[in-house]
């Protein structure tokens, strides 16, 4: 019997190695795998490359992972926010590498990895500082920049509902990067708010089929913070 549930976040992260590329889902406070990120900050790991739209705020979550010195490089689109003090300090001191990628290009590079493509030509960023040094090419009179697939060793995502095959649904804006990252990593680990029996999810409404998911941990984490959201 296929059963992808594990009992703890520590078990969920078993086998993750230093030097790994970790994809972390979520956008703002919504759909973020908070418990898995906490476990990551407590694991004995170094030199991680983290791909995440934002770069953490305050001193918890991804900011704590960075503060613990586990992250060598962040690939993100929007590191800046009122509370992103950890990243800013590490960045100023040259202790963390930062690759800024347009948000849609991050999504598309992940999607290319999920689909076995090596690279693609996109119009985003042409003529800007973020395309400097990158190959460009004209198609039908328009210039495009070559961007490469971005594959994760591990993806950490949050789902709303899961079954034992790892089929997943999400909740409203909690979908965001999660389904894309689920498909783009060798080892995909989901924390899920709710759990159902196999067969209970509508096959027409499953967003991430279980074939893309390796481990699921049930974390009824609760609602995202209703406080003033930080960018």
């Amino acid at each position: 019997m296929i059963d992808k549930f594990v009992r703890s976040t520590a078990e969920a992260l078993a086998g993750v190695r230093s030097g790994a590329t970790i994809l972390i889902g979520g956008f703002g406070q919504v759909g973020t795998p908070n418990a898995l990120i906490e476990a990551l900050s407590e694991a004995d790991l170094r030199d991680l490359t983290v791909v995440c739209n934002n770069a953490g705020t305050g001193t918890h979550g991804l900011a704590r992972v960075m503060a613990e010195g586990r992250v060598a490089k962040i690939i993100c689109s929007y590191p800046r926010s009122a509370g992103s003090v950890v990243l800013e300090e590490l960045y100023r001191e040259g202790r963390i590498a930062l690759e800024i990628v347009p948000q849609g290009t991050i999504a598309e590079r992940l999607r290319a990895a999920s689909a076995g493509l090596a690279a693609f030509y996109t119009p985003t960023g042409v003529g800007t500082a973020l395309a400097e040094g990158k190959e460009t090419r004209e198609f039908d009179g328009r210039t495009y920049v070559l961007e490469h697939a971005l594959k994760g060793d591990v993806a950490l995502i949050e789902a709303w509902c899961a079954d034992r095959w790892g089929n997943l649904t999400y909740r409203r804006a909690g979908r965001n990067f999660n389904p894309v990252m689920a498909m783009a990593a060798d080892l995909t680990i989901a924390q899920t708010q709710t759990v159902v029996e196999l067969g209970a999810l509508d096959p027409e409404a499953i967003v991430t089929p279980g074939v893309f998911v390796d481990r699921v941990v049930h974390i009824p984490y609760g609602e995202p913070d209703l406080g003033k959201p930080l960018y």
Partner: protein
Amino acid sequence: MDAIIDAKPLNRPQMAARVAADIPEGWVVNLGIGIPTLVADHVPEDREVIFHSENGVIGVGAAPADDARDPWLINAGKQHITLRAGGAYMHHADSFALIRGGHLDLCVLGAFEVAVNGDIANWSTGANEKAPAVGGAMDLAAGARRLWAVMEHTTKDGRARLVQRCSYPLTALGAVKRIYTNLAVIDVAPHGFVVREMIAGMTLDALQARSDAKLHLPA
């Protein structure tokens, strides 16, 4: 260079309302952070405009009351929103396929500067800042079928934002089709800036004095 005028510049809600007046029913529209976000409030309820947020929400509705916020429902600016009847959710790759694939009728972005050739600078003030942040701005600017910029006509210290050539790092090349400022509405035409409309009391000379690039009147 400056000219004394007797004109009251638009405030931010008035700028947003001016943009909203030009959005017809049925358009699919993405609104950037800042003044553009206010545009939605000025589209009448009975004019169905489909607002898209790049974090995968289509059919963004009016802002919720403070005590009726849905914790799971935010826009790209991380503000709480509502979903209209007919709305839908997408993941990020599909959401940006929508943007880049030409499925947005319009994107409205704030800007630091717009150049006479349509170049836009809106994401970075240059090399000396802390970790720079681009978000979805480059995708939106490169992908939308129409890009309108909304900004104050000049900076707080009086420098022109309608420029011959952008001084800040670019967001996209030749992308802007129209500019809404607190003083005027200006098209970006092949031969340069064309003033479509000015606020009451504004003169072309006075507007020119506040602009770096040459302004034209419609032919």
